[in-house]
């Protein structure tokens, strides 16, 4: 698809195009709804791939391929996302640019098959580590495209695993997509180059060594935060009430804000685009003027947990929530909730 041309595409088709435009050369996958179409879409383009025996193999093959210096990714969901945490933990520990597109299908167990926002904590903090990953939550097809490309570039630049956290509603929905102008991708280097004689550990015999390694990783993560934190702030200048929502619920909340503004209510939206690192600085800046905050999500408080953790302790903002695990949230429901409280 050429730049600026219009086409009716599904989210999965947009995701595949974005991976290719990001320079991805290889995909490992195991079919699971709702990300199977990302896999089959990639394959139908005759791009290199391997269907593995399970998500564990797919995840570790991504690690191996990345170690060899190839931009490689996978796509998974729900129980597959759980299995993938083993490889993601290794990627986090070894600082490998592992990229995954995750279509949330909720849980516990096998969840549903299409939609939820219940894989936020798993994506951000899954594994026996400290959550040093990049997790981006797109609200529409344009963002799905841009954030997927950004996930590859940021992962290879900062050497942290990156997850594009979406859902089946966005992946399966069709919409008119206009391809933006392509920017150059960053150049990459193989972590294990031929004859480099590198010795990369994933385990540390001495507690002091792991302690030191984590201190360095944290320093790298914290210093990259300013370049990675992303949020959409909408109608916040005079807002007294703030809605916080991410992904497609964020898109719904934006419509709700427009509807409430038409009723004369001073409502604004804060939509974290990077869930990890969370846009802490901008959230706290917005909060200086806010009296009441609503967290709206298709989960039982996973986003709310992130929000509460990031709010500076000197704010005494009142937090209310609309938790709809596994269900989509219409703008009308958000308006109703705000009007009721």
């Amino acid at each position: 698809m050429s730049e600026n041309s219009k086409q009716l595409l599904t989210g999965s088709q947009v995701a595949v195009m974005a991976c290719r435009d990001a320079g991805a050369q290889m995909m490992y996958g195991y079919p699971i709804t709702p990300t199977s179409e990302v896999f089959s879409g990639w394959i139908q383009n005759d791009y290199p791939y391997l269907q593995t025996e399970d998500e564990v193999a797919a995840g570790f093959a991504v690690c191996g391929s990345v170690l060899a210096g190839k931009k490689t990714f996978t796509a998974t969901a729900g129980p597959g996302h759980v299995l993938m945490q083993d490889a993601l933990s290794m990627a986090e520990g070894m600082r490998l640019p592992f990229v995954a597109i995750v279509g949330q299908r909720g849980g516990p167990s096998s969840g549903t098959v299409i939609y939820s926002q219940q894989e936020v904590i798993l994506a951000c903090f899954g594994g026996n580590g400290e959550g040093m990953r990049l997790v981006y939550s797109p609200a529409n097809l344009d963002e799905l495209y841009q954030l997927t490309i950004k996930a590859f570039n940021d992962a290879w630049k900062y050497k942290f695993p990156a997850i594009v956290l979406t859902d089946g509603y966005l992946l399966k929905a069709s919409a008119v997509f206009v391809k933006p102008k392509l920017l150059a991708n960053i150049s990459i280097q193989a972590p294990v180059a031929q004859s480099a004689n590198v010795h990369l550990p994933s385990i540390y015999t001495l507690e002091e060594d792991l302690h030191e390694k984590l201190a360095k990783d944290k320093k790298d993560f914290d210093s990259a935060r300013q370049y990675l934190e992303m949020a959409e702030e909408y109608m916040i200048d005079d807002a007294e009430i703030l809605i916080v929502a991410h992904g497609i619920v964020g898109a719904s909340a934006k419509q709700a804000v427009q509807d409430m503004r038409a009723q004369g209510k001073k409502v604004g939206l804060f939509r974290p685009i990077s869930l990890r690192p969370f846009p802490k600085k901008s959230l706290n800046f917005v909060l200086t003027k806010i009296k009441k905050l609503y967290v709206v999500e298709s989960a039982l408080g996973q986003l709310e947990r992130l929000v509460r953790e990031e709010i500076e302790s000197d704010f005494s903002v009142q937090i209310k929530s609309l938790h709809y695990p596994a269900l989509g949230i219409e703008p009308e429901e958000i308006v109703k909730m705000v009007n009721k409280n």
Partner: protein
Amino acid sequence: MNQNNLSKFCPGCGYPIVLGLLSKILSEKGLSGQAVLGLDIGCSLLAINHLDINTFQTHHGRVTPTMVGFKRARPDSISLGLTGDGGAYAIGLQNLLWAAKRDEAITILVINNTLYAMTGGQTAPTTLKGQITSTSPHGNEEESFFGPELLKSLVNEKAFLARGAVNDPKTLSEYLATAIATQQAGHFSLVEILSFCPTNWRTRGADTLARLNSLKETYKMGII
């Protein structure tokens, strides 16, 4: 052997013998630069800086799929996975079976010392029937596990499967060389290596060797 790093293996361990032979073959064939050694968990991870070749650690049972990814990304590499019997035949079996079935051009080296050594001598798939371990205090009730024989029914006819032993370095070297040549020809290879673990066997000198030799009654040497 990397002279700047002291061996991390226990005194009397069989792993350094395998690594020494491997290093010699790679060096003689001029393949050290292309070689990449992936390590599973357990004692294999101690080989992290044992050889002057590219080396990385992975997770328990996961060296095989990691090497699959590496080899497919860089077909001119010599991708070697070093693992114990638990990593290969218990937690990593599913991935090993499929790598073998797909005829992935990688080489897997399985150290069979009949127990989980690093974690303190627990029962492994290769533990002999009746053998006492920390998780089989009344003797292992299971029959032995024959990895190369199991894979035989799955692999391509040009794949290479063999079982050697650390106290027969000449034959083991031949197997390692053939395994690498098989990978270069684009096929899967696996060498299971009977090895000793005096730390967990609680044996000394002659007893260690005698026990290793007695294992050959159950685990037949040769090309499978």
